[in-house]
């Protein structure tokens, strides 16, 4: 077939495909009817077979480049991952998030270990050199404790909450993103948070303010530290994928874990809204210490029964299953 005949016979469907691409809104075909999408698929398949012919018979003709660009523009409109809708949020928190938490188990344990190493190091540092206490722990803390008003009477609580929530989300996202730098920033965040908690805990123990201190930390800290540990785990996942890609290329190994990890960290970070609210409203409040500790314990039990137990059992059937033989009728 000569180039002219090839073009004359088939340019109608190319123009049709081009027009169909223009009707896509925001990179999607969502606003179109089923028959339009079916027609789009047909046009794309026909045009890509035209592209294959053009490439064989007329490799240097401008039409070949035209057809390639046309197919390349149409392809992502039709081929795409599962769409994300608001309705997916419920199942995400009900099953997907706890499952990816458990799947990330070893990394989360490693992340927790780093936090504990920092904590123990801080604790030991203050124990060994109590004289350094003043340089390790903000002195104002002791003044407040001495006056018996540790952490009480925070004013403008909503702004405190907004500050705390945003700061913690920022830390969680940095823990994840630090995975791109082999997880080194992630490990640093975990160690330094553990260190801070360890030094302060050891210092207040020396001063004998244990109960006041822990009642100030525990209500929100259970949730907050869990989220930091989870985020740290996602960062370590990325770092591990880069360092030990196994059978895959590094870029592929990374991309494979990163999408799972980002959903885990975004889900976990959303819990920080609850943690920040507790931190601003409950922890510094005048509630009895016992109540505050009980709140922390209750949050912990809820959090971990959700993360460890939700979404177990057989997976629900997907809409499309090609990997399972058709069920035999009863």
């Amino acid at each position, binding site marked *: *077939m000569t180039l002219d005949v090839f073009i004359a016979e088939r340019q109608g469907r190319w123009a049709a495909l081009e027009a169909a691409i223009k009707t896509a809104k925001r990179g999607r075909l969502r606003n179109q009817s089923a028959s339009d999408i079916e027609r789009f698929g047909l046009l794309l398949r026909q045009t890509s077979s035209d592209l294959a012919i053009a490439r064989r018979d*007329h490799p240097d003709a401008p039409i070949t480049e*035209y057809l390639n660009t046309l197919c*390349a523009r149409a392809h992502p409109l039709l081929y795409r991952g599962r769409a994300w809708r608001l309705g997916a949020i419920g199942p995400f928190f009900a099953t997907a998030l706890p499952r990816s938490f458990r799947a990330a188990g070893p990394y989360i344990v490693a992340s927790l270990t780093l936090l504990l190493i920092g904590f123990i190091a801080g604790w030991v540092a203050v124990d060994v050199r109590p004289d350094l206490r003043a340089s390790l722990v903000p002195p104002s803390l002791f003044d407040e404790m001495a006056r018996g008003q540790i952490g009480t009477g925070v004013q*403008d609580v909503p702004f405190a909450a907004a500050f705390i929530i*945003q700061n913690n989300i*920022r830390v969680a996202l940095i823990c994840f993103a630090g995975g*791109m730098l082999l997880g080194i920033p992630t490990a640093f965040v975990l160690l330094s948070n553990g260190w801070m908690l360890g030094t302060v805990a050891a210092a207040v123990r020396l001063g004998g303010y244990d109960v006041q201190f822990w009642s100030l930390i525990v209500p929100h800290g259970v949730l907050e530290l869990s989220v930091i540990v989870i985020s740290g785990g996602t960062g370590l996942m990325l770092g591990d994928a880069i360092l030990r890609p196994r059978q895959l290329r590094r870029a592929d190994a990374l991309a494979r874990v990163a999408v799972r990890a980002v959903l885990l960290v975004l889900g976990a970070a959303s819990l920080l809204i609850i943690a920040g609210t507790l931190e601003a409203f409950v922890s510094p409040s005048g509630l009895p210490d016992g109540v505050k500790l009980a709140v922390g314990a209750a949050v912990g039990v809820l959090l971990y029964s959700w993360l460890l137990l939700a979404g177990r059992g057989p997976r629900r059937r997907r809409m499309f299953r090609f990997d399972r033989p058709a069920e035999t009728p009863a």
Partner: protein
Amino acid sequence: MESGQFDTISVRTSDNVTLGYNIAGLGSRLVAQILDNLLAIPLTLIAVLLYGAIASVFVTSAEGATFADAGAGFFAGFAYFGYFFVAEAVTGGKTPGKSAMGLRVIRVDGSAADFGALAVRNVIRVIDVVVVLIGIVVMFFQPQTRRLGDLGAGTIVVRDRATVTLASAVAPPPVMLRTPDAGPPIDGLDHIGSFEHDALRVFLSRPGLSQKLRADLAADIARRLLDRLGLPPGAPERLWPPELLIERVYLQLDQRHR
């Protein structure tokens, strides 16, 4: 592959056809980034001013003012980076800056960038921007101009704009014939395919050749055509002037394929 002027990545589709995507270069990515900043920075300022306005109404203590100030700083960060994430998520991978430059984020397998991939590349954007603009350094050395966020998300920024329009591709330059007559049928035309037809067409549609160059080229092409046709030594076609042979072969191929 198709277009010599750009680097491409090849994607094999489920129809077993290979598509070439033109990779966006560092220059156009940076221009897109600057254009986006022209929108993102004012939007961030507006967001922070709103935050400040709300705070100035409701904050009652010095302690609260400290929290509000620090909170506004964080809020600025979320607003700035949020602009890119929201813009990409809403448009399917084209921020206004990318759109203006004809760029688009896709996944390396050619499918559209989904929510998860866009989330990864936009969270990691913080590292790309904040750590001494490491993203630009990585893009400079990475063969496909991907930054860290692209590597993590398995995405790539490609040129989304058509480089050739249908009108220009289907209207190749006109063929100029001296003798618009196909002449007597030539034997052995079966040995000649569309590739040679295209080559003859290119020759016949070049107006700018000098007389001598045109004659030399025609002689060369005619010699190869005669080889390809496999005509016997005494065939009359061997006596035709080269340009006449070329025109007649071209016209007869044309007729044959109509």
